[in-house]
């Protein structure tokens, strides 16, 4: 069976992304860093293959021959192979970080996935539920929209209008509540009035990342208007994927620059520490290590701030893992992988926790609700004393 390539394969890619298909030297350095390959051992799922196959398709679809003889047809098997390679990936961007020619893969994969969706080939497995669930419940977990703020501690005062807004995000609201509880407690301790948008919807990242962008513009407009109506000038976001989505992609779907600044919660707390408005007074006996979430470190380059916050803990015993900062390993939760291949994503989370144990850490500090969910799930199948704590959760217990 063959599929006729009668759509453009290039019109959603930037010129730089199109150049990437010509720039890859197939040096294979990225293979040494791929956390999916660590587990699967399948080299056909890796970056050079994705780039080679899609590059060939573009040249075949948009080459001179195609303009004379019409759009070509390709074997469905090839498209299926490309789908496996593109979706068996957490889009962690580690391959791009080590790429010897600097290809930004974290931004490239979603654009390629979008085309597979347009061709009717993607997404993969249970990922196809993301769209309907988000449309119905405004979150990809299919949880009740009315319960989005059920986690909010009663003692926390939320302003009706404020210059500071807090975008909670679906993972924080439904599967990593200790993180957002810790965040609002930290905001309250700073004394900065903040507001929430009580009809907040998913940021659109889970749809964007699997290439299904149909609803995203509507989602973005709804959320932006909701926060603008509350007078927000600075929007705090605790989830790295949401932070990336809001900073990098929302302006495009909104059609203009956002009317507020996007700041990750850890950046905000680090700013407050620097201004002398936030101080941690309690110590913790554990040896800590920190996992840089993919979209926080490689996505928006918030790398030093979490360490600055951890450094405020009196007498802290902190150790870096072998793979840290821009080169941190992925926990397996990203890119929609946990939906289409949950077993693989749990295996990846276990590897990351084993890395934390290898440096003698008692507590693995994370700063991402997706990591939080995945690692707690993975923890269930392991015999370990390692504790998984979110940074905001930790901070809220130490002031």
């Amino acid at each position, binding site marked *: 069976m063959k599929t006729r390539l009668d759509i453009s394969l290039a019109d959603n890619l930037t010129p730089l992304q199109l150049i*990437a298909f010509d720039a890859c030297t197939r040096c294979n350095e990225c293979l040494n860093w791929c956390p999916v390959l660590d587990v699967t051992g399948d080299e056909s799922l890796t970056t050079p293959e994705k780039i080679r196959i899609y590059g060939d398709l573009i040249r075949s679809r948009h080459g001179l021959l195609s303009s004379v003889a019409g759009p070509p047809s390709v074997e469905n098997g090839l498209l299926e192979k490309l789908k496996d390679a593109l979706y068996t990936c957490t889009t962690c961007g580690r391959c791009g970080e080590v790429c010897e020619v600097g290809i930004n893969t974290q931004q490239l994969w979603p654009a390629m996935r979008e085309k597979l969706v347009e061709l009717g080939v993607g997404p993969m497995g249970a990922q196809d539920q993301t769209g309907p669930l988000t449309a119905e419940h405004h979150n990809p977990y299919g949880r009740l929209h009315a319960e989005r703020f059920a986690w909010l501690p009663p003692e926390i005062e939320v302003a009706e209008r404020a210059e500071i807004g807090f975008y909670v995000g679906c993972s924080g609201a439904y599967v990593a509540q200790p993180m957002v509880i810790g965040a609002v407690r930290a905001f309250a301790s700073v004394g900065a009035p903040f507001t929430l948008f009580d009809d907040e919807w998913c940021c659109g990242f889970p749809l964007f990342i699997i290439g299904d962008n149909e609803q995203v513009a509507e989602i973005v407009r709804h959320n932006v208007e909701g926060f603008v109506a509350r007078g927000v000038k600075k929007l705090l976001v605790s989830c790295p994927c949401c932070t990336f989505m809001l900073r990098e992609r929302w302006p495009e779907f909104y059609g203009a620059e956002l009317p507020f600044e996007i700041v990750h919660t850890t950046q905000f707390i680090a700013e407050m520490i620097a201004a002398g408005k936030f101080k941690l007074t309690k110590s913790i006996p554990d040896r800590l290590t920190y996992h840089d979430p993919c979209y926080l470190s490689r996505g928006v380059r918030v790398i030093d701030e979490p360490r600055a916050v951890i450094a405020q803990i009196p007498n802290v015993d902190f150790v870096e893992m072998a793979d840290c900062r821009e080169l941190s390993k992925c926990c397996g939760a990203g890119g929609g992988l946990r939906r289409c291949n949950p077993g693989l994503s749990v295996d990846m989370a276990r590897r990351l926790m084993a890395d934390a144990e290898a440096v003698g850490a008692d507590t693995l500090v994370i700063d991402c609700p997706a990591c939080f969910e995945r690692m707690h799930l993975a923890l269930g199948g392991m015999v370990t004393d390692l504790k998984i704590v979110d940074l905001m959760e930790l901070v809220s217990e130490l002031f």
Partner: protein
Amino acid sequence: MQSLFQSFTVIPLPWRAPFYAAAVLALLLAVGGMWARVRLWGLGRRGRRGPLSDAGLGHLIWLSLSKFFSADCLFARRVFARSRWRGWMVMAFVWGSLALIGAVILSAGFYAANRAMPAALDRWASTALDVAGTIILLGLLAALGRRYLFPPKRWISVSADGGLLILFALAVFSGLVMEGLRLAGPGWEAALRWPIGAALGAALNSLALPPEVWERLYLAMYFAHAGFGLSLLAYLPFSKLFHLVASQITTFAALTPPSGAQAAPQPPLLSRNIPRRERGRGSGPALSEVEGVRARDSQ
């Protein structure tokens, strides 16, 4: 001793027309093929966020030419950050090719202009060609060794990449052998000008063949070298060697941090706490260790 220019006149008169026709055809294929690929860059959507999002084709072509001479490319900074072995390999290709292309353009320019080249310049150009060819060949041997003898544990490729490498190596190797054949007569007195070619010539001299045989072998090797070289030129835009045109743009764009990011260390790969790895698996334990040692379900 022969001058560098003489290589332009070794082709027997009846063969010149087809030879130059082949050269023009190779050049047309190279330029046409390159344009066919470069024009695809213009199909992208402009105005999206990200580096070079509004760059037109002209700007991108300018970056391709100018950024080739950036420190990142000339000193293979991103490559060295990951692997010294590959870093030196790339340096051999880049500097060897620059010297080779520079010397060829210089001598061809003088030949076209006034059929003469200042003696000192001719001497330097001759040595540059000789040494640069050897440097590239060393780089190519390292690449071939990495590919066929000591491949990394994690490796994926296509056979065309191996074919390209072999073609490149044949083009360079045949050039050096041709030099040896050309210098088989003069022996070591040519060593000051063509050290590698003279060494090869001295080695070949030990075969004690009659001069006319050397001449015939030299002509055959000249055509072989030209054939390999022109084939490489024509094949360039259809092979992965096209990264020579594209990769400096992505390397340059990688220096731009994401919007709203804090000031990123420049270059990002050289910041602290980054482990260097030559190759091989990551530092984490194997899955069997994770599951076997610590997983409850395995107990």
